[in-house]
């Protein structure tokens, strides 16, 4: 069957009668935001009082612990009941208590009587770290953090640095000084290196790197000064959503691991960039040439040998079996994302094993690696059933 056409999913009209607690949504018609985060974007309108009486909330000024109180009702009819307060939406006042500090996803708006209220600027869930309140969005682009392992694509080559797409709101920078030179040589970068910058990375090349530091404006600076990092080859790339929020790749114990594949596929490396960019490739053991073996193989020597292949853009020989299993893993990741599941080592490994079993019973046999459409849903169902 070359084509599957599915009927549209019926849209269910949300039950209307559930949400009559208009009080629930934040009140205070006259709040004037004057924080660092936002420019007041309009004129104040004064003639409206007769038509919509302002609901002033006195609770905020009287009691000491002043979280805005809301009726804890209105659960959505479902197997798991989640209170409406589980979600905050833009403009919703979180607290006026000065003991909290505002983090990401919030801003300060002035409440009545000059008090400052931490207000959400996103639709998401409230998290706190000690005294820091932040709102994690339901979904957003990846926001880099120092130490993140990311997969990125070079989009621009400049005089002394590369500009790398990491799926964030801004391009990341990879300075020439933050890469290893081939052969493990340690020296200052010269003009010759600058002229040869394209021989290391050119436009379109994929790199795996670590976020070294963040600029004031949120831009990330990457480095590849480790044998784990560098140019990627021998595999396929895919972009899913990153850790900004929602489904996709999540931060976990390991972002990089080697998976022993079934069907004679051999070992396969999986790199789940925290930014949602994924690289799946054949695992290649560093080849140590004869000359080097004869010499004393010290640690530095090994490093030298390994880093020699660092900037190659030539693929090694890859067996069809390996390619097939790589495609299967890619299918698993796609199925996870399309069905709203998280992507981490645990899920990918389980999903892969499940997919191998599914292929055994399918008509196509173990060579059938297709996991789109209904099969993806089947896979997801099998996984959630097992993990639940």
């Amino acid at each position, binding site marked *: 069957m070359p084509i599957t056409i599915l009927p549209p999913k019926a849209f269910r009209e949300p039950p209307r009668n559930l949400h009559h607690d208009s009080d629930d949504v934040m009140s205070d018609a006259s709040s004037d935001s004057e924080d660092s985060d936002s420019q007041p974007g309009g004129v104040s309108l004064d003639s409206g009082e007769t038509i919509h009486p302002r609901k002033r909330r006195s609770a905020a000024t009287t009691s000491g612990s002043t979280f805005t109180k809301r009726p804890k009702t209105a659960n959505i009819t479902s197997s798991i009941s989640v209170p409406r307060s589980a979600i905050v939406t833009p403009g919703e006042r979180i607290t006026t208590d000065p003991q909290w500090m505002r983090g990401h996803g919030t801003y300060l708006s002035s409440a009545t009587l000059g008090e400052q209220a931490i207000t959400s600027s996103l639709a998401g869930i409230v998290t706190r770290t000690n005294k820091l309140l932040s709102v994690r969005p339901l979904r957003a682009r990846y926001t880099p953090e120092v130490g993140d392992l990311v997969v990125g694509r070079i989009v621009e080559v400049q005089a002394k640095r590369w500009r790398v797409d990491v799926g964030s709101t801004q391009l990341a920078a990879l300075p020439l000084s933050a890469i290893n030179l081939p052969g493990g040589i340690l020296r200052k970068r010269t003009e010759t290196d600058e002229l040869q910058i394209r021989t290391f990375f050119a436009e379109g090349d994929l790199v795996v790197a670590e976020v070294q530091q963040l600029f004031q404006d949120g831009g990330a600076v990457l480095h590849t000064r480790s044998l784990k990092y560098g140019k*990627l080859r021998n595999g396929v790339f895919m972009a899913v959503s990153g850790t900004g929020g929602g489904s996709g790749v999540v931060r976990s114990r390991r972002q990089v691991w080697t998976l022993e594949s079934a069907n004679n596929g051999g070992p396969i490396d999986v790199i789940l960039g925290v930014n949602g960019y994924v690289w799946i490739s054949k695992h290649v053991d560093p080849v140590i040439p004869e000359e080097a073996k004869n010499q004393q193989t010290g640690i530095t020597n090994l490093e030298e040998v390994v880093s020699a292949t660092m900037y190659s853009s030539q693929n090694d020989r890859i067996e069809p079996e390996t390619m097939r299993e790589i495609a299967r893993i890619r299918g698993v990741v796609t199925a996870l994302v399309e069905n709203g599941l998280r992507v981490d080592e645990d899920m990918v490994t389980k999903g892969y094993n499940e997919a191998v079993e599914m292929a055994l019973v399918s008509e196509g046999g173990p060579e059938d690696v297709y996991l789109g459409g209904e099969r993806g849903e089947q896979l997801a169902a099998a996984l959630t059933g097992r993990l639940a």
Partner: protein
Amino acid sequence: MASSQHVLLSPAELAYLHASLSLTPPIRPDGRSPTQFRPLVAETGILPGTNGSARICFADGTEAIVGVKAEVERTRTRHDFPSLDEGAEGDDDDLEDNQHDVVKGDNDWVEMTVEIPGYRDDDAGTVFLSAMLSEALLADGEFTKRLWINRRFHWKLYLDILLISPPLSYPLPLLSLTTHLALLATRLPRLKSEGDEDPLFDDDWAAAAYLYPRPAAKKGSKKTTSFATPTARPPVTLLVMAVGNNIIFDPSKEELAVADVALAVSVGESSNPSSSTAMDIETEETKGHHNLRILSVRTIDPPSRLTPPGIPNASNSAYGANAAGAKDTEKKKQQQEQARTAESEAVEGVWKAPRGGAKPLVLAALVQKVLEKGGVADEVLDALDGVDLN
């Protein structure tokens, strides 16, 4: 845009993709079989204000909406035949149905626009897409005949094709399938007036006839159905590409980036097997299968030709041995020689953009594969038939 859409892939990725797609059978990155399409969600009749509409979403999120709107327009009288049939008009009415030269269509009766977000409507890529889609529709001259009302009036059909998502992959197959569905769902009000009077239509939408009469409910006015067999249907345009010895349907953006040749093949169902034009390639078997014929073929310039080549290790100055500094000059010389051969010859695992044009044999194979009895085009048409029209 689009066909020459710049895809930024590294040489190593391109080499891997090309290698895996050249295997027999090919291994596609998403595991599909060579003839398999991406699964899609389709619905019709989404816009009550139009004569016909459809929406298709692929699983990757690309989405298109097509709306068809018809307006009655006065047919421009031809000045080159002055008052040729003034007197005979009334008497010939009954004969008209059998005369080819009376029910005439004009390509001006169909207006098609393609909207792609982020691209101007006069962008070369958009214009090319719209030209390809309308070309397929108008190629056999049968379609515009359906718009004929009487000698003085005709329907003017406006097809508006909207791509909702950013163009993640070359949108041609998506737009074509959506247009196909929208046309299948298109209905025109039933004509109440007769002959060459000013047309008067039935207000009852339920009585409106399908532009492409359905075999099940074949009610429409005689005039519109007379020149089409009930199985007639709008064309579909399929995107086919060749890599190595493999023929691959509905390629994704990445796959298209390593294509040797890419073709847009428009296939229609020949309603009238006897009238074969020069372009016709009739399939012999008609029983149980669609009587397919080629309406148009266009080569798509695959982005693969613009990709940068990979550098073999031998000539890579940042590659270990070279960078570390080969000590003796003898060795260096040897390497330089190697590098020179590497530039002109293919090295395994190194990407090299395809050069030269498409070979006629390959093109023939691609077209043949599309038309194959019980093949992809057949099944696609069958599947589209199964979509609920409302």
